[in-house]
């Protein structure tokens, strides 16, 4: 199965409905998605997302290709924003189209786990009181990504 891969790194927002419609149109019958949104609270004013421009697209494409190699997919979409984002704004979209729902859902789960641990983005939190701090990588994200090392379906 030859999967249509779409990877984008951008500052602009994306249209989830339009992206999923593109995947639906591939004819697989099953489309799954994950959307990450900036969560507010604790006085968070904005997130600043830094990335490694020369590397990001190549890494994201490789992650999408890996998903397509592991599951029978018709399409894989991975979109990640960078720059300044405020609570409520979308950060990332991972989505997959397949002939079977398990493949679409598992591939989506895989995509977001790997994007979180293998795509060169870094988040800095800016708070209302003027403070700011870099988000620390979480051990549970590594554990979530490592699940896929053992398991090939």
């Amino acid at each position, binding site marked *: 199965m030859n999967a249509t891969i779409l990877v984008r790194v951008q500052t602009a927002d994306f249209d989830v409905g339009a992206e999923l419609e593109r995947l639906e149109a591939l004819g697989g019958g099953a489309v799954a998605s994950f959307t*990450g949104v900036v969560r507010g609270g604790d006085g968070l004013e904005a997130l600043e*997302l*830094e*990335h*490694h421009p*020369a*590397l990001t697209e*190549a*890494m994201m494409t*490789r992650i999408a290709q890996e998903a397509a190699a592991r599951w029978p997919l018709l399409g894989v979409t991975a979109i*990640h924003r960078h720059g300044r984002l405020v609570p409520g704004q979308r*950060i*990332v979209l991972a989505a997959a189209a397949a002939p079977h729902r398990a493949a679409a859902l598992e591939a989506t789960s895989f995509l*977001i786990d790997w*994007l*979180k*641990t*293998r*795509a*060169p*983005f*870094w*988040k*800095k939190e800016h708070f209302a009181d003027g403070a700011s701090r*870099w*988000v*620390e*990588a979480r051990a549970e*994200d590594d554990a979530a990504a490592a699940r896929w090392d053992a398991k090939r379906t």
Partner: protein
Amino acid sequence: MAIELLYFARIREAIGRSAETVSPPAEVATVAALVDWLAARGGGYAEAFADRSRVRAAIGDGFVAPDAPIAGAREVALFPPVTGG
């Protein structure tokens, strides 16, 4: 041997610049040795690389392990563990 270094996120801020060209001595053969050599400069460099477990590297278009050789690399990126998604 001149190498272009790229710094990101916390490491970029501690060092105070996002890129520089360095010429480490020949015995600096791996990413880990390069980090040691940079940290030995003290100041922001020492701070940036104080916790080696929180330093990651990329050469070319992929992440590499600390023992990866830097011979032939034109560009090495050094950064903290990623936190996107």
